[in-house]
């Protein structure tokens, strides 16, 4: 048996579905140009995908058929030679649709191998989010904006070929740049895309990450029910009712915090999160009433606090809020905890409002980042900017 090389892509469900498919397909077809055999596939447990919920896609490549068959017989590769993270907010880990709990992004990466993240941030910043691990690995940032599109309309901003270029640099034994160029010329028939792949190859660099380096947070632990925990009638317990809770400063009890399903949290589903100005909130109820995830806690003050265990970052609250700048969606990568904003506000109004202003500012303007289709022609407008940012490196 020969050597099996596996590539793992971690991406945002639906938003990057076509992108992930194009990349894994490209890896296999490019490797084919070097006489190798391969196959690309999505993770069965992630299907059907849901908007924003992390998903995985794989490409496996071998020199001979027997090795490839052995690889295909596995549900998914247990260890991979390179992991690509297509959205930097996933650095905090991926809790996929299927039951795996929250996994760090380097969960399956072989020691010493490369983790590629598409981001505008640098590696040390990303390491504030990427969890620690015991084995060393390499971290490379492919500079670029996150490419989101949707189910039907694809944003062709060269991210696919740029990832191929970076992989050729990080793992030449999988596929060389020549084979990637040939694939683009033959199949995609776009000389600009050849250029983009070359630039990504030339610019891509990685740093060594030492054992223990990175985000020290413990991963949330989940206790999944087993079949013998089921009750009469093959039933499980429903959610209990929530109740009022205490103000951290005045100790006054009030408001309402619903009980929540503890087995599926939305930490890694978010690409952005709402930040709330409790000082301007008019208590109109609209964010709370219109949140599909019941993520707002009603505080003892009767304002509304987005509970970050439950918020998936859709942005409906910002849209329905009638007060200007009371709720603002900010890129998730700006945050390193999931603490209650209202508690911070209660403890120190001025400090919170200062933090709020700074946080909103740090998220603006977000170059070219849209969370899906808003109007026709939008992607066409965004592509040149995305390519310019990528070229600048």
């Amino acid at each position, binding site marked *: 048996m020969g050597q099996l090389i596996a590539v793992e892509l971690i991406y945002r469900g639906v938003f990057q579905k076509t992108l992930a498919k194009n990349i894994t397909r490209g890896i296999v077809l490019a490797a084919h140009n070097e006489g190798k055999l391969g196959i690309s596939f999505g993770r069965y447990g992630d299907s059907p995908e849901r908007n924003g919920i992390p998903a995985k896609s794989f490409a496996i490549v071998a020199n001979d058929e027997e090795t490839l068959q052995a690889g295909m017989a596995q549900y998914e590769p247990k260890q991979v030679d390179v992991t690509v993270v297509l959205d930097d907010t996933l650095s905090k880990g991926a809790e996929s649709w299927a039951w795996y709990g929250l996994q760090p992004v380097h969960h399956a990466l072989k020691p010493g191998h490369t983790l590629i993240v598409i981001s505008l941030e640098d590696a040390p910043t990303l390491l504030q989010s990427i969890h620690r691990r015991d084995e060393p690995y390499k971290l490379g940032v492919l500079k670029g904006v996150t490419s989101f599109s949707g189910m039907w309309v694809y944003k062709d901003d060269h991210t696919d070929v740029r990832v191929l270029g970076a992989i050729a640099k990080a793992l030449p034994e999988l596929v060389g740049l020549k084979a990637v160029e040939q694939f683009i010329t033959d199949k995609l028939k776009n000389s600009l895309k050849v250029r983009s792949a070359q630039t990504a190859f030339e610019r891509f660099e990685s740093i060594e990450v030492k054992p223990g380096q990175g985000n020290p947070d413990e991963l949330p632990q989940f206790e999944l029910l087993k079949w013998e925990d089921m009750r009469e009638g093959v039933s499980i317990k429903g959610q209990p009712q929530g109740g009022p809770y205490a103000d951290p400063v005045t100790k006054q009890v009030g408001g309402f915090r619903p009980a929540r399903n503890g087995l*599926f949290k939305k930490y890694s589903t978010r690409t952005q999160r709402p930040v709330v100005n409790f000082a301007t909130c008019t208590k109109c109820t609209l964010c709370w009433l219109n949140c599909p995830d019941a993520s707002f806690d009603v505080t003892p003050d009767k304002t509304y606090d987005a509970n970050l265990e439950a918020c998936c970052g859709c942005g409906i609250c910002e849209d329905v809020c009638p007060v200007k700048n009371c709720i603002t969606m900010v890129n998730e990568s700006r945050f390193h905890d999931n603490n209650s904003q209202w508690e911070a506000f209660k403890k120190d109004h001025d400090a919170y409002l200062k933090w709020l202003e700074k946080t909103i500012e740090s998220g603006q303007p977000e170059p070219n980042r849209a969370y899906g289709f808003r109007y026709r022609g939008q992607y066409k407008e965004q592509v040149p900017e995305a390519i310019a940012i990528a070229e600048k490196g």
Partner: protein
Amino acid sequence: MSTTFVEEKPTQNLEAFKGVKKVPYEEYYTSGHRTCQGCESAQIMKLMAKAAGPRTIVLGSTGCMYVANTSYYATPWGVPWMHTQLGSAGSGALGVAAALRAQMRKGTMRAEPINVIAFCGDGGGADMGLNAISATLTHPDYNLLILLYDNETYANTDIQVSGTSPYGVNTSFSTPGKVKRIMHHRWKKNVAPLMAAGHPTCKYVGTISTSYPLQAMNNIRKALSIGGPTFIHCLNPCPKGWDFDPLLSFQLGELAVNTGIWPLYEIENGKLKLYGKTEQIAHGRFKRLPVREYLLKQGRFAHFVEEDIEFFQSKVDEMWEKWLVPGVIPLQKELDARNPPSP
């Protein structure tokens, strides 16, 4: 006075919530479901459970709201919930209502009014489950509500065409091609009037939208209180299948109403009442917005050329100008004027 032989049982008699500030805090469908960002189908589940309250049994036929809410022994439901097969929302609801009655009669459970709600998606309700729902709506003895949450495709299995998919839409079964642009040329099924016209003893049929949450909850409460089997059809924008930025979910629900595509009405004891913006449109107090504003915000219509938008607009205009009851009953006015069906 003749006996009807109908064994009516009391309902919980749920009063309307008088304003958003009077809506209770309690959630019976809470966080921690595996739906998409900005999922309005999850939103109607939340509103439905809140409106119905704690003494409620919910049945769900197969679809997004089954799969995404019950995976891996985990649930967001705070009221008893049970899965029922894809086409069985109607028979499931009827069976549960009948079982409750039998148990209360035998004294194996306390006699009290319990809400029975069965929800189904457009695939489970407007396509496969239509016959079971129809049969159920003819049973006057049982108090139950069937709620059809409509995201206009089989969204759970990755967006295949359903009977309520709008004209021309891009789905996994109707991908536009170079030679043939419009691969889905059927008009959306008009489900609620079908239920009202076909089941004269059904006391309540209506449409709702998640973008008008208070009204939606109050209509659900009315349907649960009026007695007998009732039916509500809710339109739920689906960011995944309709292909739009999730933050537009709420706006698109409003736009569907304001463009006249999704009329809001209730038929209570045979009396039709348009409500909200739909009523304003019908009385000329609000000018329908062009459907273009709705269509161009969605990737599923990105292949539409001017001609297709005009056709879509003309069909919606027809609903409002030529239908006997604008937006509701698709019998032509001219026919009625020439040859009145009854004196």
